């Protein structure tokens, strides 16, 4: 089970956090501080796993961003690396060669996508296409609702003139 997902920039700024196990606000910032200290200081050729408080944290660096997932001791670390890559590829397809700025300004989109990949700390979908389709459909639902609202307000606005 994945206990939490963290996206940290190389400067230690948090770009996304998702907690599947309960951590209080205080613990969360402590966890982030501890892990960013541990992970950002590791050299490039080392393995992608760090042991931390009886858990393992699997991390992978993509450009300036570190994607970290915390798992149990007995979980399959190599698979979690694949899950991270899976998520990154989906982000990449959605934003069209994703960069850190995309994730800053559209952080909610990154969360929506993550919610289609993981629930309760477990993998939900292994097909990138399906995830992309589901997110796109929901985006279009939002767009449609917006247009409708605009058109109605337009009508009202015109009517009251």
């Amino acid at each position, binding site marked *: 089970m994945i206990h939490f997902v963290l996206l940290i920039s190389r400067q230690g700024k948090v770009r996304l956090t998702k907690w599947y196990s309960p951590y*209080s606000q205080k613990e969360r910032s402590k966890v982030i501080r501890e892990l960013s200290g541990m992970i950002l200081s590791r050299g490039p050729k080392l393995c992608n796993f760090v042991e931390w408080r009886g858990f393992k944290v699997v991390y992978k660096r993509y450009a300036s961003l570190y994607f970290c997932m915390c798992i149990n001791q007995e979980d399959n670390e*190599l698979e979690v690396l694949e899950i991270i890559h899976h998520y990154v590829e989906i982000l990449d397809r959605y934003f069209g060669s994703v960069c850190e700025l995309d994730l800053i300004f559209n952080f909610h989109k990154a969360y929506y996508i993550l*919610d289609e990949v993981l629930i*309760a700390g477990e993998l*939900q979908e*292994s097909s990138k296409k*399906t995830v992309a389709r589901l997110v796109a459909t929901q985006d279009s639902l939002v767009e449609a609702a917006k247009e409708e609202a605009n058109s109605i307000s337009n009508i009202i606005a015109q009517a009251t003139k």
Partner: protein
Amino acid sequence: MNPFSSGTRLRDMIRAIRACKTAAEERAVIRKECASIRAAVSDNDNDYRHRNLAKLMFIHMLGYPTHFGQMECLKLIAAPGFPEKRIGYLGLMLLLDERQEVLMLVTNSLKQDLNHANQYIVGLALCALGNICSAEMARDLAPEVERLLQFRDPNIRKKAALCSIRIVKKVPDLAENFVNPVASLLKEKHHGVLLTGIQLCIELCNHSEEALEYFRKKCTEGLVKVLKDVVNSSYAPEYDISGIADPFLHIRLLHLLRVLGHGDADASDSMNDILAQVATKTESNKNAGNAILYECVETIMSIEDISGLRVLAINILGRFLSNRDNNIRYVALNMLMKAVSVDDQAVQRHRTTILECVKDSDASIRKRALELIYLLVNESNVKALTKELIDYLQVSDQDFKGDLTAKICSIVEKLSPDKIWYIDQMLKVLFEAGNHVKDEVWHALIVVITNASNLHGYTVRLLYKAIQKSADQETLVRVAVWCIGEYGDMLVNNIGMLNLEDPITVTENDAVDVVETAIKHHSSDLTTRAMCLIALLKLSSRFPSCSQRIKDIVTQSKGSLLLELQQRSIEFDSIIEKHQNIRSALVERMPVLDEATFSGRKAGSILAAAVSTSLNSVNGVSTSAAAPLVDLLDLGADEPATAAPTSSGGNFLQDLLDVGTSPFPSQSGTTQAQKNGTDVLLDLLSIGSPPPENSSSAPDILSLSQDNKISVSPLDSLSSATAPSVQASSTAMMDLLDGFDPSPPPTKDNGTAYPPIVAFESSSLRLMFNFSKQSGSPQVTEIVANFTNKSSNVYTNFIFQAAVPKFLQLHLEPASSNTLPGNGNESITQKLRVTNSQHGKKSMVMRIRISYKLNNKDVLEEGQISNFPRDL
């Protein structure tokens, strides 16, 4: 855009925050945003609620408090439209967690949304429930989720399956409801559903033995077939990852097979072929393939033994271990740990490679490898492996030394073939990484040294040589100082030479130099300095020619700011100066510490009980005496809870001294004679009370010494000493006795009345405590302290002071007088009021200090009272 809306757009806020140069600027921007959001919240603004929540989420991510937005999430979730609900649920998952009460308010909305006609809204609700539901919500909404496991759209079914995992984790009782729906999920073709169904199935098997049996019978065949199909499936672009069709599904299937096959031969047998196929056919040049192989190896290791498969698995691990990719090596080490219990020999073959991994530049790999090596050490390879590890200790990273040292010490303790090897290795470790050695390790080393009587000389010379080269390793210094104190004569005179040693010339002054350097070293702490003082006292007797020099060194500590050191140096100084005749008897070599008892203590065995029973039988005393000695020496850091509080930390020296001097009364024979001449010593001993026949303190002290001169009569009186009369004995001794006093503390009277206690007693003074409690306030205890002068002289300027730990509150009322006439004619009374905030959990303790003038000289007496009735 509404011209009256105050807020900026989300994008603009993020820009503004990013443009901030300093943290203060950022805080200002956020304060402004939060203020306007709060205003919008209180205006119940509908138009920008979703935008405000999005902003709050960003602010939350930066680590600022956003609790005021929680209700906004609920409002958005309750809104009818999909866009509002989408952002509302996202906010709910980000800003709240399962422990917040607000979450309960959302249960009803969730229930409605789980039944919504729009399947995407159902999906949102399932996702939120799966990520943050609490046990109560799980109970309330489980029927809805269960129903959704059969929903027409597979995307809802898969979400419902994962949501069920959370529900079962929160409320394991609900597991059985999910067994049947899951069985049908396992037959699905849709990968997402299959994937999540398998995960739910694993979760159910973890929680319920019945579910495990059910799935083992009904589904094993089917799952093996599914795995076969997936393994042999042709190229499927949708699921392909580096040439493998859906490795995630592979891994989940292998995991479930592992659960089903564990402990069941038939099930294991049916998956034999497919496991062999996966293990041999999977491509291992990409991470995805290796992930599958890794999972497959774990499954092979866990299921029942099938000939050949395990060999295959170990071979895969061997290949992994020699891989250049660090990730692969890491998981190989990880898995080999599990393989050790299955096939030790096969893992031993890779020992050299694993040993190389201990020296890897990657901390994660080093740690794994060290754990593994630790499992691989046995009698036959312990010498070679320990040598390798100790050699590596010299060059290893500073932050790795702690782990490495602990493991080496543990190996050496567990598997050392003989004492000389043990001592050699431990001294090497102390030399290289003494600062990382735990207290119990060097305590154990001292116990071993005392027991190896033929190696005393060898050890002390080795330590002398070591400390010349390395004075910074605190524990090395301690052990060396202790040994030089004990065996200094053997060091100087080259006594007990072994054949392998070269003789060295050490003068008495050289030996004293070592201790002097140690006591003056800036990094030495209280324990080390205290040990140095003791060693010096001992050396003053061993080396009479250096006596004056030692006296000078001891005198220098008289000005120490540490009370313990100051006091002891004054005492030792007077021993050296005034009591030449008894000095050599005082500082005799420590009696041999009993190894069995010590290791028993380490194992946390119930020492107190063992000792108290052996004390009851008179014959048992001499053998068990070593255990209290260890206690007194404070060699065991892991005090059993019942042990006397005196032997912890601060009183270290006093305890040592108590033991050191204890042979003294028995040797000089007539206790009456000492009383006049050696007031100082009696004070030191803190026995204080004159040794009349009915006092139990003297015989107790005698019993502590292993001196063979103990006559039978004190031993006889010992058995009576363990009877209730102990309560009346002096407090200082009470502390010591607590550890092995079989009689329960005197608190058996009816609840409210407490018997008076002798709180403190010395040769000159007795302090009695009378307790009373007012009904209705059990935490408050009124104490009437009664001071009695036992000498014939008048004490003037009598002042009593007391200190208590933080959980107690102490109020001292003025004393009845500050003059205490002699011969116990009159007494001073003083009232104390103590409030125990931990009433019923902790019992009271108190440190006291009594000062007075006797013939115009200042006298100071101190003590700790810990024999309070327990439930005060």
